[in-house]
């Protein structure tokens, strides 16, 4: 491994597109063998950062090292051991899936072409490998993109929204596959909008907002920093339930625009509250987790000052009452750009 022990080590990476600052002094570090989530709203700079990792975009400032080497130091071997794709994987539509992979394997040199059939089978495209790619669905192209990435036998796998267009079974299997390759020592960088996906499989995360790092660190630390989850509660008597909430410690509730209540509480407090409602003969007709703690933190980190609805960490459709507080975690309590994301072993196991 490298001197710093980092697979990816980006320091102060800045990229301008005309007047637009796509990346603004981004520090981004990933340690080996982790699944690292890259989060951010549209236009946050995720794709630009991933493109820079692949050398598709040349940073205007800063340094970027993969496996300890800058692009200038590594030359054409810069991407050796790196596989993946940015945005939707694209292929030659007039060639079939197998020939597309053969072209890419040819570019890699070596004996990757012997893995093509195996790779197609692994991603569930064995039966369609001879079909022209112009007939592929978005999900099939994602799968072909994964096959193309795996042909490189990567030590670093970079995936940009890999579950776009995939069916639920494919998404489930992809999550399992990513955990498995990470256990095998492959480092995975996963860009996603799906917080649930990130929570399930990532060990560490970086949140980008307006081209800057809004948060970087281990997921377990992030969870500890996160505000209370937000619940959607429907009862037989919402007014009585709201009154009961005001007396319940650690529970904050408000009426929801579409009926029922929106409740901020940690799991234990919520359990107590529901039991209390039962004792008060208020029936619970529906209870669902509306915003997970990490989602709430994500909304907070990526909220714009001019957007008070998201700034409150409550989804736009949620609270209307003034009794619902802003998120309990102030932005200042979140590390702006902490050290490399290197999860504790326990956290990695649980992921």
């Amino acid at each position, binding site marked *: 491994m490298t001197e710093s022990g980092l697979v990816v080590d980006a320091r102060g990476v800045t990229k301008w597109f005309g007047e637009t600052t796509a990346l603004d002094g981004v520090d981004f570090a990933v340690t080996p063998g982790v699944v690292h989530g890259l989060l951010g709203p549209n236009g946050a700079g995720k794709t630009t950062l991933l493109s820079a990792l692949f050398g598709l975009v040349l940073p205007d400032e800063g340094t970027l090292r993969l496996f300890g080497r800058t692009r200038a130091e590594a030359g054409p071997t810069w991407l050796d051991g790196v596989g993946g794709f940015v945005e939707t994987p694209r292929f030659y539509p007039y060639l079939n899936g197998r020939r597309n992979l053969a072209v890419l394997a040819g570019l890699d040199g*070596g004996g990757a072409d012997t893995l093509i059939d195996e790779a197609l089978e692994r991603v569930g495209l064995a039966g369609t490998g001879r079909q022209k790619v112009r007939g592929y669905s978005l999900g099939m192209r994602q799968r072909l993109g994964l096959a193309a990435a795996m042909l490189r036998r990567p*030590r670093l796998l970079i995936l940009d929204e890999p579950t776009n267009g995939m069916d639920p079974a494919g998404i489930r299997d*992809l999550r399992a596959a990513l955990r498995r390759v990470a256990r095998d020592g492959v480092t995975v960088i996963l860009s996603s909008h799906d917080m649930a996906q990130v929570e399930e499989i990532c060990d560490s995360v970086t949140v980008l907002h307006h081209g800057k790092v809004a948060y970087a660190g281990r997921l377990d630390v992030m969870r500890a920093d996160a505000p209370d989850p937000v619940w959607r509660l429907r009862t037989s008597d919402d007014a009585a339930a709201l009154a009961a909430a005001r007396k319940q410690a650690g529970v904050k509730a408000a009426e929801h625009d579409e009926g029922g209540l929106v409740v901020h509480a940690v799991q234990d407090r919520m359990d107590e509250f529901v039991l209390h409602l039962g004792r008060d003969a208020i029936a619970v007709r529906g209870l669902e987790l509306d915003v997970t703690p990490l989602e709430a933190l994500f909304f907070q980190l990526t909220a714009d000052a001019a957007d008070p609805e998201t700034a409150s960490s409550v989804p736009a459709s949620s609270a209307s009452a003034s009794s619902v507080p802003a998120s309990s975690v102030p932005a200042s309590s979140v590390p702006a750009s902490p050290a490399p994301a290197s999860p504790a072993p326990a956290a990695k196991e649980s992921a």
Partner: protein
Amino acid sequence: MTLAADRWPGYAELGAPAGKGSGALVVWRLELAKLSGLLRVRAIIFLCLIVPFLAVAGLNVQSSTPGDTPFGQWVHSSGFAIPMVVLGFGGQWILPVLTAIVAGDIFSSEDHFGTWKTILTRSRSRGQLFAGKFLAAVTFALACMLLLTVTDLIAGLVAGTQPVVGLGGQLVPAGHATELVIVSWLAEIPPVLGFTALALMLSVISRSSVVGIGAPVLLALVFQVVTLISLPVWGQLALLSTPFMTWHGFWVQPPFYGPFEQGLVTCAVYFVVCGSVAWLVFRRRTIGAAA
């Protein structure tokens, strides 16, 4: 259809890809393989094979001759006149079309299909990709020229091997006429390569196949029109269409090669300048993101 997650092996144990091949030549070979999958490329090859024979058939059924074209008045008396009529009639714009169809599309098609991100994330540098694609476009142009030379000559020989009257009025015997037909066709290679580089540059800069293919053809026609204007010598020499006509000097007695040599310089300048500009634009290009 599901991802067979349980069968994804430990890739880290397999290590990095094996040998690297030889850079640009690997790309060149793959580009040729991709070109072979394109219908229009197959169509061009097919046309190169049959058009000379169609020209022979067409000229034979006509009672009149294309007298305003060099060698046109001799098409019924010597087979050697036919490939020269084809060359004189279509050389200045058919050949640019042939090469532009591939060279004007070989870079911009990657933009069209969005595949730059796919190939630039493999183990080849931009320089290798550029060189491989450039070589593939040149290879296609050369292949077309050689194919047309052979098929035109064969079509002419099929039509008749009588001596032909040269542009100086001298009678050229069959053996020498064969040599001159071949040399005349091969003399078109430099301007064709000039147009190849021009189309390729336009393809890189515009990222549009319409521009990459259409603009060189349009320029070829403009050059032809401009040729009709009384330009100073340096102006004529600067036109990439002028070298297409330098074979005329081979068919007089004594032959003169000055225009051909000047044309070589013009073609070389176009080739180097257009190729260099294309590379300079391509090497700093931003791919994807906000590109």
